[in-house]
């Protein structure tokens, strides 16, 4: 059957295009323009060429923040993805407990970022916080504002608490969409629980896992509010991630040029990593023919 091509449908894309132009394309054009200039305020700009890019790429401060960001994203992905799958697998598939579990899972996602930071800031304090007080009572010297390890541990646990639910809900949606016939076939073949997971559930969850992985990577790589509220980037610079550093430079110091150059490098890294993840994960297990032409 011949396909009908109707290019008038493209007109429907115009509103989205305008929205993206206003919210993304024009701002990014401005950032590119800023990144090759210097300003002393008053909308007066001076051409500096690629100087800010060279500075950013050779700056130890940028390398350190990037390293911390990559480490943070790696750790939380290693925890949240397997934990999310595990919780989704243990959740009931029918009955009264389904809505209860779903609501409980959705609760942390509904809390704004700055409130999450404040909750954990108070929670971790030794004088009034349950966690800090309990740690002190157990004789553990815990202080997220002065100890680097404690600060990192608190931020990681806070992120896991806040965002694992997203992975759980996505995986759960993938799991409940698997037709019962697959499980019946597996039972007839005498498949083990591991085999069911490996050959039925995991492949069927692949699509949602890609989304979960990308969302969690992008979110964790761009994390700002929670660590900013909890530790303010400290102790020292130990939890100063790229976004915190960027805000310090752009708004704190009003160095628009270097901040623009840094944000472009930052964006390119996010774009590259997401593209690689997306391509690799969406091609896993698909058999493609040999090179054509």
């Amino acid at each position, binding site marked *: 059957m011949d396909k009908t091509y109707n290019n008038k449908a493209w007109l429907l894309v115009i509103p989205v295009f305008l929205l993206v132009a206003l919210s993304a394309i024009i701002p990014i*054009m401005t950032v590119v323009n800023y990144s090759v200039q210097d300003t002393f305020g008053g909308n007066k700009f001076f051409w500096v060429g690629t100087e800010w890019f060279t500075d950013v790429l050779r700056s130890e401060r940028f390398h350190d923040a990037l390293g911390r960001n990559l480490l943070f994203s790696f750790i939380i992905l290693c925890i949240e993805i397997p934990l999310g799958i595990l919780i989704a697998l243990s959740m009931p598939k029918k009955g009264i407990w389904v809505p209860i579990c779903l609501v409980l899972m959705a609760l942390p996602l509904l809390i704004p970022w700055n409130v999450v930071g404040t909750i954990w800031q108070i929670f971790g304090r030794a004088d009034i916080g349950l966690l800090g007080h309990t740690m002190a009572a157990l004789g553990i010297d815990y202080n997220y504002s002065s100890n680097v390890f404690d600060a990192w541990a608190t931020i990681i646990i806070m992120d896991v608490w806040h965002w694992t639910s997203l992975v759980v809900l996505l995986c759960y949606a993938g799991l409940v969409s698997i037709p019962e016939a697959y499980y019946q076939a597996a039972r007839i073949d005498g498949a083990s629980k591991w085999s069911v997971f490996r050959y039925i559930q995991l492949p069927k969850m692949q699509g949602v896992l890609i989304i979960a992985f990308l969302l969690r990577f992008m979110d964790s790589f761009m994390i700002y509010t929670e660590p900013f509220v909890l530790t303010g980037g400290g102790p020292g610079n130990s939890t100063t991630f790229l976004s915190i550093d960027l805000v310090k430079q752009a708004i704190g110091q009003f160095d628009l040029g270097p901040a623009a150059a840094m944000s472009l490098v930052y964006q390119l890294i996010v774009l590259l990593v997401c593209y690689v993840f997306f391509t690799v994960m969406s091609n896993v297990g698909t058999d493609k023919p040999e090179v054509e032409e």
Partner: protein
Amino acid sequence: MDLSWMAWTGPTALFWLGIVSCLVIMMVWEYFSPGGNPRVGILRFETTRGDRLFISLLGSAFIHLAWLGFIGPGLWWALGISFVYAIGVFKTV
């Protein structure tokens, strides 16, 4: 319309004009040869012309950054390498 708040410069305007030209060329190409020419190349996954343009632009950005980071200003060589890279991507990926 006053666009001075966007702090335009000649080189950045040329840069954006280059990106827009790439997109226009792709649209014209698609008009004369519809379907996006999907194929499996050396990266072993299916790519269309749009994918190949994206890989070329992203790779070129990193070539320029690497040049600035390791060698320094003066990006004409990086631009030349990027062109060669883009041709390679369009021919083999």
